[in-house]
């Protein structure tokens, strides 16, 4: 078998291993998917009326707000999932079996690739569930097939980039607790962006941060693709952030993984 075929096979083996581990320990997966669903329902039904009125809609404030809200919630789903990735990578690194993998003639990156693909699939499942609930509570996007494809493609790319970031954070964490704390900040980012309310409704400094931080352009681009809002330079910014985060995190993770084990 060629090197590439072997790498693919090893990554598949590692992926199977991760899937099995999740099946044994499903609480975290359930929790990570439940978080955005709860946020969606909370914001739609508890805050939705008031926030929707604030956006300018009068008669159908809640329905308008659900339209505004869903893209942010979709990105929050991505953010929540990577917390699980960071934790499971950190947990894994504490297991002696990783040292065993390092002494075997298997593709170097397979352990990490297995985590990334596994987390990505988990994120897709989460996105499907959140989108299903959104549609059930009245989310009615105006997008055509191409726009759907674009929106899903962008979210998927962003998810891959953030997953590598999570892997790097998981690798760099000294303990599982640290690994679960750092990504919490990332989960909060949709709040400090245009996920729940427009960035320009915030105080000046915060508004500037909210507008340019990675989540906002992605959320705005998805919003524009699904709902036909103004896209501006958001698509470029979104892709730029995705590439920067993805490449940086990938290199960082690989560097950390090659670092010799310390006992």
């Amino acid at each position: 078998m060629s090197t590439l075929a072997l790498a693919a096979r090893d990554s598949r083996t590692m992926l199977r291993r991760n899937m099995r581990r999740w099946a044994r320990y499903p609480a975290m997966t359930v929790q990570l998917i439940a978080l955005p669903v709860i946020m969606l329902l909370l914001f739609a039904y508890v805050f939705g009326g008031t926030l929707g009125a604030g956006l300018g809609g009068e008669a159908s404030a809640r329905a308008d707000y659900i339209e505004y809200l869903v893209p942010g919630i979709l990105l929050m789903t991505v953010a929540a999932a990577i917390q699980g990735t960071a934790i499971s990578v950190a947990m894994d690194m504490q297991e002696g079996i990783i040292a065993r993998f390092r002494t075997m003639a298997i593709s170097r990156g397979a352990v990490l690739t297995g985590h990334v693909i596994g987390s990505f699939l988990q994120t897709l499942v989460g996105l499907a569930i959140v989108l299903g609930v959104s549609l059930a509570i009245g989310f009615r996007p105006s997008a055509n097939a191409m726009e759907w494809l674009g929106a899903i493609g962008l979210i998927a790319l962003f998810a891959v980039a953030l997953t590598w970031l999570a892997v790097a954070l998981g690798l760099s964490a000294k303990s599982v607790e640290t690994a679960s704390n750092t990504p919490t900040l990332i989960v909060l980012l949709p709040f400090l962006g245009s996920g729940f309310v427009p960035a320009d409704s915030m105080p000046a400094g915060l508004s500037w941060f909210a507008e340019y931080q990675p989540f906002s352009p992605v959320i705005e681009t998805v919003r524009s693709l699904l709902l036909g809002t103004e896209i501006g330079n958001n698509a470029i910014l979104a892709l730029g952030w995705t590439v920067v985060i993805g490449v940086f995190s990938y290199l960082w993770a690989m560097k950390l993984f090659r670092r010799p084990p310390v006992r």
Partner: protein
Amino acid sequence: MTLDRPTAIAATGLRKSYGEQTVLDGIDITVPEGTVFSLLGPNGAGKTTTVQILSTLIEADGGSVRVAGHDLATDADGVRGAIGVTGQFSAVDNLLTGEENLLLMADLNHLDKQEGRRRAAELLERFDLVDAAKKNPMTYSGGMRRKLDLAMTLVGDPKVIFLDEPTTGLDPRTRRTMWEAIRNLVAGGVTIFLTTQYLDEADELADRIALLDHGKIVAEGTSDELKRLIPGGHIRLQFTDAAELDQAARTFAGSTRDDAALVLQVPSDGDVHSLRSVLDHLDVASIEVASLTVHTPDLDDVFLALTGHPAEARSSAEAGDESAETAADTVDTAEKENVR
């Protein structure tokens, strides 16, 4: 006896330091194929570091290594393909069952599905883990985990196996099971690189033993060769009354008597000839002996003589929960007198 065999592990001038601290200070190791080589030394001597370097986990600062014909520096993957490692820290996946762990190893060794299943079943059988196959390793005893760990190492049929303190913390019965497994592997032609802090373990298993102390090999040879490095062998005769002791003391010139204990120590290198000669003399002189024991210097004596400190010396930080077993083992190895 092993001179004509090809070399499985050849390391020269191996060096490693962490900052100011020199862990390995230029060690040379040659292990012929199909033999057991034991690196013996106290904690902190550099045993685990040596295994980590030879098994590709960390890079040496200097020196060259060939394992199973592959150069460590240029063909680490070739080395990885030929070796298996079982360390003192369990390397099993705690969320998978015992059987799944073995199947995972089969997949990573690129065995086809059928072969992998066959191999896993065979190893579960061999290590008496069939009943535990579907259970999570978290529920295993320490000995079962170690057996699963070794079984996982064996899935890939490695030519060279590194065992880093394979029986540390195990109960005596499981230790014997592990020893038996190791002997079977050697019988099958596998080369074993064993680190241990237990003198009896090296004595029991190893063809050649190297004593490692502070990153340097202070002595190397077979167990017997090492024991011959220091004097101290004798036959110990225990009497029931002083008259017999007197008579015996006159019979054996150069012997040392202990009147209070009614014991006579006759110098001897511990072989059958000297023992027979002592028995003959006792017979001829009609001396009644209550008991006779042969004392040969053991590796403990050797280690103490060569390094100035006993091999079991452990730092207090590392003694931890294993101190009970270690203490028991110290008593075991300290029983220098083998009653015949």
